[in-house]
């Protein structure tokens, strides 16, 4: 029988754990964080200005046109929604499956989910022609008739799916944070800090009753989130699958999208975790190379699922005998946007294959590079689906190309500004690893690594 590896290395005492984890919250940020934050913030401001210009001038500033009615905004929306999948998967599904290794990455992955969904949520609102009327997408009693929404439209399902997912994942994340907020509160020396974290911890006293309610609520929320992990991207895929466009109208989309979402989500988790490990070296004891390896394995597995979906789409296009479908897929691989298709295939299917080698999947620089490729590849997957399907559909006289503009680039990169600003703030304001959950697992696998040379000195530096 295989021995378990240590989930936390370094023979931490409970106090050391607390101090390690709350250190970023309780110390002043260094130059590195400040410079990163300022640049992210600048990018975020640039993003806000770009959106303001687009909203006030018109969607025509972007490359969307006739026939490509959806472009960068929808592509980037699906991209961020997809990213948002890993968090809930890790914290809810892996929680239910009692995967203890999840504890050290769950909090940050969930934060990433929340921020990714927030970033994504902007796009459906601003991609409409008249964003100031977006509230019409919500069914509510009104004085316009009352005019109701069209429940047959997948776009409406999308509104529900995304808003539900955003709400539940945010609540789930917050509930998990409550005991840790209380810890910070209890340690706080400054009045304001105590007040703020006191308010955030919702009066947590750490009594058995608190823990009992907490555990039950956490379990229930995990149960509630689990179907959402699958449903939200299923419904996002319906935006495409339920319509008629060749290349969109396929039944494989729901599972294919979910697999792709988990794939891209883990890609982003690995990207962020490698950076967090660099930024907060102490976290290396909690987010160990073993954790990273497990996630890399998931990346490889879901990458192959996505690869299967790519192949399956081609097979079905041929097998269906539908000439439009057939043309669309040939056009994807060999048409004017074939470069996007091959970027997608190489980033998503080929590059993750290097994780077959243990050495490579345990190498931080390699996994960082691969995770970046996965992120790029998954953006291009959505680009390929959205743009190349639309740009050549039924009547050849309508064919056209996407009119990519600088605003497309600004919107795409600006959204990273929003995400990174939120994420960097999170790292400094919230405990990035769940203190309450890590403490019960510090003994796991400890017998195997009791070698004295692995003892890391943790004194000082608070």
């Amino acid at each position, binding site marked *: 029988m295989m021995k378990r590896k240590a989930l936390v290395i370094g023979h931490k005492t409970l106090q050391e754990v607390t101090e390690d984890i709350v250190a970023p919250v309780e110390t002043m940020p260094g130059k590195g964080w400040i410079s990163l934050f300022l640049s992210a913030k600048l990018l975020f401001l640039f993003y806000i200005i770009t959106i303001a210009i687009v909203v006030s*001038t*018109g*969607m*025509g500033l972007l*490359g*969307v*046109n*006739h*026939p*490509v*009615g*959806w472009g960068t905004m929808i592509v980037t929306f699906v991209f961020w929604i997809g990213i948002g999948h890993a968090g809930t998967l890790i914290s809810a599904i892996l929680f239910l499956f009692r995967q203890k290794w999840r504890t050290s990455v769950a909090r940050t992955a969930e934060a990433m989910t929340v921020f990714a969904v927030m970033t994504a949520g902007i796009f459906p609102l601003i*991609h*409409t*022609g*008249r*964003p100031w*009327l*977006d509230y*019409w*997408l919500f069914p509510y009693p009104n004085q316009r008739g009352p*005019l*109701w*929404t*069209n429940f*047959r*439209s*997948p*776009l*409406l399902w999308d*509104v529900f799916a995304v808003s539900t997912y955003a709400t539940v994942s945010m609540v789930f994340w917050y509930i998990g944070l409550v005991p840790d907020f209380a810890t910070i509160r209890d340690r706080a020396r400054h009045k304001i800090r105590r007040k703020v974290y006191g308010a955030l911890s919702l009066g947590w006293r750490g009594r058995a009753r608190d823990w009992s309610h907490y555990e039950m609520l956490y379990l229930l929320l995990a149960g509630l989130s689990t179907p959402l992990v699958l449903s939200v991207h299923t419904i996002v895929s319906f*935006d495409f699958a*339920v*319509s*008629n*466009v060749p290349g969109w109208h396929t039944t494989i989309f729901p599972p294919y999208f979910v697999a792709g979402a988990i794939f891209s989500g883990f890609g982003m988790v690995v990207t962020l975790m490698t950076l967090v490990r660099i930024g907060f070296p102490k976290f290396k004891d909690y987010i160990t190379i073993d954790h990273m390896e497990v996630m890399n394995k998931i990346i490889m597995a879901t990458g192959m699922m996505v690869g299967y979906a790519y192949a399956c789409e081609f097979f079905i296009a041929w097998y269906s*005998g*539908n*000439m*439009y*479908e057939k*043309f669309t897929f040939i056009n994807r691989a060999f048409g004017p946007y074939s470069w996007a298709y091959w970027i997608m295939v190489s980033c998503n299917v080929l590059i993750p294959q290097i994780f077959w080698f243990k050495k490579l999947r345990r190498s931080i620089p390699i996994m960082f590079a691969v995770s970046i490729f996965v992120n790029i590849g998954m953006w291009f997957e959505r680009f390929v689906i959205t743009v190349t399907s*639309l740009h*050549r*559909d*039924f*009547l*050849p*006289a*309508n*064919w*056209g*190309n996407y*009119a990519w503009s600088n605003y497309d680039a600004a919107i795409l990169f600006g959204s990273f500004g929003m995400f990174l600003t939120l994420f960097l703030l999170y790292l400094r304001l919230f405990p990035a690893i769940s203190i309450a959950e890590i403490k019960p697992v510090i003994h796991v696998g400890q017998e195997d690594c009791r070698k004295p040379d692995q003892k890391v000195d943790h004194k000082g530096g608070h």
Partner: protein
Amino acid sequence: MSEINKDIVQKQTQPEALQPEALQPEALQPEALQPAQFGYWKSLAQWNQDSEFQKAAAQEFQSSPLREEELTEEDRDGGWARREFLKLMGASLAMASTACIRRPVQKIVPYNKAVEEITFGLPNYYTSSYFDGAESLGLLVKTREGRPIKIDGNPKHPLNGGASSTRAQGSILSLYDPERLHGPRKISSGTAVETTWAEADASIVAQLQKGGVVVLTGALNSPATTALVKEFTQGFKAKHVQYEALSSEEIREGQKASYGDEAVPFYHFEKAKIIVSVDADFLGTWLAPTAFTRQFAAGRKDPATMNKLVSFDSNYSLTGANADIRVKIKPSQQVDVVMGLAHEIVVKKGASKFAAQSSVKSALAAFAETPTKLGISHELFSRLAEDLWKHKGQSLIVAGGLVTQTEAAKDLQVAVNFLNSVLENDGATVDGRSGFSGLKASTKAIFELIEEMKKGSVKTLVIHGVNPNYTLPSAAGFREAVKNVGMIISSSDRVDETGTVSSYVLPDNHPMESWGDAEIIDGVYTIQQPTIRPMYDTRSFQLSLMTWAKIAKVGGKRISSSDSYYDYVQAIWKDEIYSQVAKAAAKGTNKAAGFESFWDQALQTGVVDLGKQTKSSPARTFKLDALNSVKAKSASGLELVLYPTVNLGDGRFANISWLQELPDPVSKICWDNFAAVSLATAEKLQLKEKTLVELVIGGRSVKIPLYIQPGLHNDVVTVAIGYGRTAAGKIANNVGVNAFDFAKIEKGALIASGLIVELKPTQEAYKLACVAGNATMEGRKIVAEATLTEYLKEKGANNHRHKTFSIWSGHQYNGNKWGMAVDLNSCTGCSACMIACQAENNIPVVGKKYVLQGREMHWMRVDRYYVGNPENAEAVFQPVMCQQCDNAPCETVCPVLATVHSSEGLNDMTYNRCVGTRYCSNNCPYKVRRFNWFNFTGPVEKPLNLQYNPDVTVRPRGVMEKCTFCVHRIKAARNQSRLENRELKEGDIQTACEQVCPAKAIIFGDLNDPESRVAKIFKEEPRAYGLLEEFNAAPAVRYLTKIRNNDQEKRFPGTEGASHNKGGHA
């Protein structure tokens, strides 16, 4: 803050302002502070009115308002007095609420001095006429509340009927062109200075009286203007020159040489079973394309007896694109084609009355090897000759237009006349005795004029209706010659190219602002009624002439007896037209009505037809001597072809944005002209698309974008004229290259075709705005085609219908259910429907930049696909509008129900509900939906907004729009039928595209009425099919297969059925 807001602020603050006074009275003061007049007192201190006590009493009740009043600043302990607080609170509330009050009230006043004939909300229609130098149409102008908004053909007109051309449709926009001059201008040292009519008249008359006057006009087909100019020129001893860039001079010369009389004949395409066109683009730009398209389409309504069009095409013209057999040639081969056919018939077959004449034989001998020269099979050529002879008297050979303006332009006409005489067409399909008598313009005349100008014998030049400084090549020397002319007066509506070299620009009224008339062809007269009062301080050219003549006290009786040009027109009509009508009536038993009622009736019906056309015209005798000059020539090198386009013609309408954005029917390129060459030539010369090429002609070189046109002759490069304006306005200036400048003058004649040019590649990138996504159908069944042979065997040949089924019962339509049928066999792709739709539905123009980005807004488009290999590509056209599907994919995906199914089968688009997700457009398999990417309609420059159709919403930014089947016309017709207490019937409703279509290719009607034409087509017509039928969107539009009368067994040989139909059981 606006006035209204101020009012409200005052109103809201008033009660506050009143308060102090109202609450001040002594009586209200609290008891404690008053002298104890009632005798009760509580303490001695009160009795004594001790000041300490009073202070304490005042503070006894916290809420005493008086206390605060009394308190001084120091007493307040730095706090706020309640009243002051309330005051400030109220004021700030009032201020804050002004920001969110209702919008300012702007009172409107009802239409209390109604014009008698105008019913608010209902259109008025007036007959009028249109003339663009070549084509003349009878019009019916739709006006709303006094402003013309749409031009259509006059349904009672014998030539164009209800149809009209793209340019006529677009000409409405020139009325509202913001860049029209608002009054007379004097041009001094290149700049236009405002002047008054009186001032201008005085100095002009003084100049006119010096003599040496020349009146330069375009072709005049107006009897009144012609008479007036004659009277004027007689009065001032002036000369009258008629010039058009697109004149028909070569036809007149050819007619004169062949038959002795110099008139442009009228052609009867409807009577011809076989038509051979040698570079005469009669469906697009030659003479009267609207009337000719009507005739041509009438000849192929029933495919079983359809005519055959064979086109020998140097350019890929619209006529060539519609030909059953199209043969690419180069301009130097035009004469060969005609003479070669004559050789086949007269010499080889020995047919016709000329067969015995040796002079004919010798003249034709040189053309024996024509098929070899053309590079086509002898068999095709002799079969064509056979066909022609078989249909003698029912065939028609035509040639003409700018493309035939080679050195041998007259010879070509002589050859054509000869062949028509051989085939006994003269008198049958060619009416030489009553033709286009108004087309008398001459390019040779203007060259003579320029010579005179250079000599200095022209002191005053009055220019009307032409723009020689733009349309003449610089080699003509017009620009130099004007320096020797004392005064040049232009009647243009702007300071155009000719205006800039003039002394005065005296803007003429727009045709829709002034009276006029036209003799379209011999004996067919129309009146041009003004439909709006002149918008600016303009004066009709005719009135200017009359005014000058009156001031100078010259001119004839009519000028002196007419106060206005209206009087003049009436006088002419009374003397010349009414007299003929009265004479004709006198011959019969009817007594003619008086002139007044004749005039009223002429205005109402818009046309007076003396019926000269219906009389049979006997064949004329062909003068064989004329053939002597017709010689075979051989040429080598790249030959230049200049051609007018369907949208811009000679460039006079270049500043009309609709026409600039209308894609050329064949190349589908807008906002530019270009040099088109064949694929092989481009490869040979290493020319690339999306770059500029250097066109070297006569030692000059011009950079021009390259376009590879399938189906062009390898020795041909074609360039459209009408572009490259420099002083037409913001829209037209510097769009494209002025190709008129490439023409050469030789022996006093203009050579525009067949000039040898060179093309050199450059590395400069240049993008052409092309709206056609893909040139071919990619093997899909989009335009179904069959040959006549296939059709005769099976009417539904190549029309593979799909069995579709649905899991629900579908919508129920209990009243009307609207449907449309488009006969692809009639449609010529002329694109008049696109402009009609644009005019009817307030469709914005987006400009070249956005067309390049795929943001054009046309609700209706005409798709063009090429069939066959690029060397001999044939074209097909397909108008595509919203298909109003029963199972509409757009309807299900809209999250806010902005597009919904109506009870009459329309996909209604609710603009104000649309939030602009564009999902509907993505899901539309026909991609007929258009999105307002920007605020296209907002910045429309005044007064262009006056053209807007008030029945159609002007769409804001961010909403989707599309064809509505002209739902407002349906509603209007329904209202009318209700007023008349009857059901809607067939013909009550015409959509804008249906109305304008000269080929009558579009039929709209009620599918629930079994007797309607559409219902019959949907039910019975074997040629009918739905576009992407297998997709089961259940469109309410049916297309009818195109039939090609090209002698071939199968449209797609070597395939069982049709290969392009096999696809897509989706």
